[in-house]
């Protein structure tokens, strides 16, 4: 079943084309990796899917519903975490999660918040102001927020940047488990190609807003005769990043 369908997506900022005729689909339980150099349009794509940016052209349909017409209804079943967006520093992790649990109308919010804090090993910090957390702990809190509403579609913008290798590995394992057991679909951007190879079976390469390659990781590697995704990346994108 198609969870997400993007058709002919185009976004122009002034005269700069950030996304150009982008098409993609995402199935239930699938993790799609989005790769590309800085300024390729990865974050713009995520912002369009979240309804934060209105596309110049094209359609985004999520759970079979047009995003522009059913924004609130659709966003209730989605969530996101980004390395570039933080939760308010003055609030404690528990308070931050409580606010978002109410925003997403989560049932039994306090219990769910504690559960998420335990899952990301933040329970002992739940009453400490967020500003006193390390950057890795803040990212884990973002991920806890992203899973609060048991999303069916999760958008992750460089979620493991800033995490130490152990926590990054745990986060990846958790995502894979969630995709497998609960059927969560994930769009995942990262500059870490090794990590991407581990997490996503299918990847989409963006360059200057255009899709330059797309497919299953193994197929792409075989097709282009490269040894790894990293080698493939430099072959397709070049060395401009």
């Amino acid at each position, binding site marked *: 079943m198609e969870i997400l369908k993007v058709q002919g997506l185009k*976004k122009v*900022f002034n005269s700069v084309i*950030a996304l150009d005729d982008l098409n993609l689909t995402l199935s239930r339980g699938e993790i799609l990796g989005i790769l590309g150099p800085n300024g390729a349009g990865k*974050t*713009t794509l995520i*912002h369009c899917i*979240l*309804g*934060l*940016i*209105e596309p110049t052209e094209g359609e985004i349909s999520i759970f079979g519903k047009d995003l522009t017409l059913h924004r*609130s*209804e659709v*966003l*209730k079943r989605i969530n*996101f975490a*980004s390395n570039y*967006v*933080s*939760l*308010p*520093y*003055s*609030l*404690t992790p528990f*308070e931050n999660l*409580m*606010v*978002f649990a*109410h*925003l*997403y*109308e989560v049932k039994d919010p306090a219990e769910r918040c504690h559960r998420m804090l335990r899952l990301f090993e933040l329970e002992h910090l739940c009453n400490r*102001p967020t500003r006193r957390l390390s950057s890795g702990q803040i990212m884990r809190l973002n991920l806890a*927020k992203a899973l609060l509403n048991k999303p069916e579609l999760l958008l992750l913008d460089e979620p493991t940047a800033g995490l130490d290798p152990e926590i990054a590995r745990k986060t990846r394992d958790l995502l894979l488990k969630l995709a497998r057991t609960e059927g969560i679909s994930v769009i995942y951007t990262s500059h870490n190609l090794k990590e991407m190879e581990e997490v996503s079976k299918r990847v989409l390469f963006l360059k200057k807003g255009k899709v330059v390659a797309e497919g299953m990781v193994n197929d792409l590697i075989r097709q282009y005769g490269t040894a790894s995704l990293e080698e493939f990346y430099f072959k397709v994108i070049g060395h401009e990043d």
Partner: protein
Amino acid sequence: MRIKRIWAVVLRQTYLYRRSLPRLLEVFYWPMVDLLLWGFVSLYLQRASADIPDFVIYFIGALILWDILFRAQQGISVSFLEDMWARNLVNIFASPLKIQEYIVGLLFISILKVTIAFVVMSSLAWLFYSFSIFKLGVALIPLVLNLMAMGWAVGIFTMALILRFGQEAEVLAWAVAFLFMPFSAVFYPVDTLPPLLQKIALFIPSAHVFEGMRILIDKKVLSIKHLSMASALNLAFLSASTLFFAKIYRTARKRGILPKIGE
């Protein structure tokens, strides 16, 4: 509209104020300083000039009522700024929260702030100057409601400007209300103003409220004319500011401003 989502907006601000002494002080401190300073000045002026018998009542009454407008506006625009400073707007606007639910949440915060400031100021006025704002009777209610409505209109307008121009425009959250102050004839009758400004004052809801307040103090009657004018103008102000905000919000989504605001 979903109550739970509106409550989330209120909850976020109450958590913020609960653990921030400077923010809490801001709610109590300025109303207190204003009242003490201008209250004693008006006491002194009343002793110096016996011509205006209700000088203290005029002045302190006006001061308390102006603070209602100011706090109502701050409840909207500063709360929005708090989310901008915390770079939380992306989280908020990417959630199921509808923009109208966000604004209603901010209105509740505004009511909360106004209530606190009103209680502080009226208690101090009674304590220091034996002045009870409640002497104005039930007629006080429509005056207060009109000032809150104007505060909300100004707050929503300011929020739209901040959304449009970003962090550089944050000073407007404190400045815009004061732009209306001279035309509002808070501490003097409208006929004190030069003819051109009098004409402008005709179109400012708060000017009618303060004229109404003075008539209420002098003649103990509520001026229906001023009350109707204030209400009609507030309706226009609120509609215009909401439409303006909706337009700016749409433009912000088109121009990709939302994810970058606060940077």
